[in-house]
C-alpha cells in the first residue's frame, strides 16, 4: 500500500525530519517498506521516521480501539516503533507486509495490556460495541475508501456468528474462552469460527481482486 500511504503521510504532520532540506529524506519516501527496514538496520533514523509516517496512524488507531485509552495507546505506538528500531530483523518481508507485522505487534501488546486488571476494569465501564471517536484521516484516497468499502461489505457478508467472534477477539481483545461465554457457544466452535471467518474473508477479498493490507 506504499503509494497511497505515503501520500497520506506527507500531508499529515509527522515526525520532524521533513525539513525540506534533505535529499536523503525525499529518497526515503520513495523506498519500499522493506528497503526502509533495511535502512533501519543500518541505524538510519530517517527511515524509522518514514515508516512511522506511513504506519503510526494505523497502529495508534488499533491500539486506541482495543484499549480505549489514548495514553495507553500512545505507549503501544512507542513500544512498537522502538522495537522495530532495536530489532528490525524480527520483520521478515517474505512473511508478510510491514503494516500487518506492526499491527500484529500492536495487537499482541494491546491485548496483553487489556488483559491486565486495571485496564479491564476501566474498559468494562464502556460499551464494547461503542464506536471509537477517532479523527480518521479524511484525506484518504477515493481508491482506498473503495477498498475499505469492499472490506466492510465482505465482513458484513460473513455469517453473523463468525463476524461476532472475529470482532470480539480482534477488537475486544477477548480470549476464545471469553468469546465462547459471551456468545453462549463451545470454545472449540469459536476457534473454528474465527479461522473459518478469516479464511472466508481472504477468499472473498481475493476474488474481488483486493490484496489485503
Amino acid at each position, binding site marked *: 500500500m506504499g503509494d497511497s500511504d505515503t501520500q*497520506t503521510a506527507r500531508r499529515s*504532520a509527522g515526525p520532524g525530519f521533513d525539513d525540506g*532540506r*534533505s*535529499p*536523503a*529524506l525525499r529518497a526515503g519516501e520513495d523506498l519500499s517498506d522493506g528497503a526502509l527496514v*533495511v535502512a533501519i*538496520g*543500518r*541505524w*538510519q*533514523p*530517517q527511515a*524509522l521516521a518514514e515508516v512511522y509516517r506511513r504506519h*503510526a*496512524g*494505523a497502529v*495508534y*488507531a*488499533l491500539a486506541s*480501539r482495543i484499549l480505549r485509552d*489514548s495514553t495507553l495507546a*500512545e505507549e503501544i*505506538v512507542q513500544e512498537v516503533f*522502538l522495537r522495530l*528500531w*532495536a530489532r*528490525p*530483523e524480527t*520483520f521478515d518481508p517474505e*512473511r*508478510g507486509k510491514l503494516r*500487518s*507485522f506492526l*499491527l*500484529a505487534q500492536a*495487537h499482541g501488546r494491546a*491485548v496483553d495490556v487489556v488483559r491486565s486488571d486495571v485496564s479491564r476494569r476501566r474498559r468494562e465501564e464502556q460499551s464494547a460495541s461503542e464506536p471509537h471517536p477517532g479523527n*480518521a*484521516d479524511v484525506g484518504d484516497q477515493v481508491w482506498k475508501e473503495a477498498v475499505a468499502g469492499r*472490506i*466492510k461489505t465482505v465482513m458484513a457478508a460473513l455469517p453473523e456468528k463468525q463476524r461476532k467472534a*472475529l470482532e470480539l*477477539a480482534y*477488537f475486544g481483545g477477548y*480470549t*476464545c474462552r471469553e468469546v465462547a461465554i459471551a456468545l453462549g457457544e463451545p470454545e472449540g466452535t*469459536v*476457534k*473454528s469460527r*474465527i*479461522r*473459518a471467518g*478469516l*479464511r472466508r*474473508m*481472504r477468499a472473498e477479498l481475493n476474488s474481488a481482486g483486493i490484496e*489485503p*493490507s
Partner: protein
Amino acid sequence: MTAMSAHEDIQELLGAYALDALDVPERAEVEEHLKHCAECRREVDEHRDIAATFLEETIEPPPEAWEHIVERLDQPAPPPREDRRAVSLRTALSLAAAAMIVIAGLGIAVVALARRTPAPSTSQAALQRAAQTALTAPGAKRTTLRSADGRLSIEVVILPSGRGYLVSNNLPALPNGQTYQLWAEANNQLVSFGVLGETPGVSSFRVEPPVVALAVTDERAGGVPTPTRAPLLSGSLPPGSG
C-alpha cells in the same frame, strides 16, 4: 492436547492464534509447532494480513509520541549488528534476543552505544574487548579524529576487513536532546554512519571504499539525515583501510 498434537489440531487454532485469542498454554503449543511447520506459519501470516484490514481508520498519534521515540532512540545499547543473513533466518516468533545484526550493502553502519545510565552493559563490555583485541590485531591501522583546535580527539582502529572501532575519546557529554553523530566521507559527500549518543562509548562500524574519511558532528537526538553542523572532529582513514 499434548506437545505432540497433530498438525490438524494445531491448524484449527491458527485463526485464534493470529488474533491473540488463545490462552497462554495453547499459544505456547502453537508456537512450538510453528517453529517447524512452514505451512502453518504461512497460514498465520495470511490471517494477520486479513486482520490488518479490519480497522480501516487511521488516527494520527499526538506529536509527543514521536518525540518520545526520538528521545529513546539512542538509549538502548543494542548489540553489534554483524550478520543480517543469519538473523533473518530466525522466525519472527523467536523471542531470543538477536545477538548480532547485520551490516550489509555499503557496509555502512555504526552501533549506537550511548546510554543514559552509567551502568556498563554486556554488549558495551564485549565491544570494548573487541576494540582492545583489534588494537593489536595483525594489519590493524590506527588513526585519530581531531577537532580543528586539536583539543578533542577520537582514537580509531581499522582492521583489514574494514571493521573499525572508535576506541576511545575525550568528548564532553552533550546536553539532553543532543547526540554525536558519525559520518563517512565518500565521493565528497557525508553519509551517516549513525548516532553515537550524548556520551559516546566504544562503537563499531565498517568501512569500504570509497570511504576516505570520518567526521563527527553534534546533532539533535535521534540524528539527522544530513549534517546540520560543521564537523566537530574529522580525520582521514589510513591508506588501504577497508
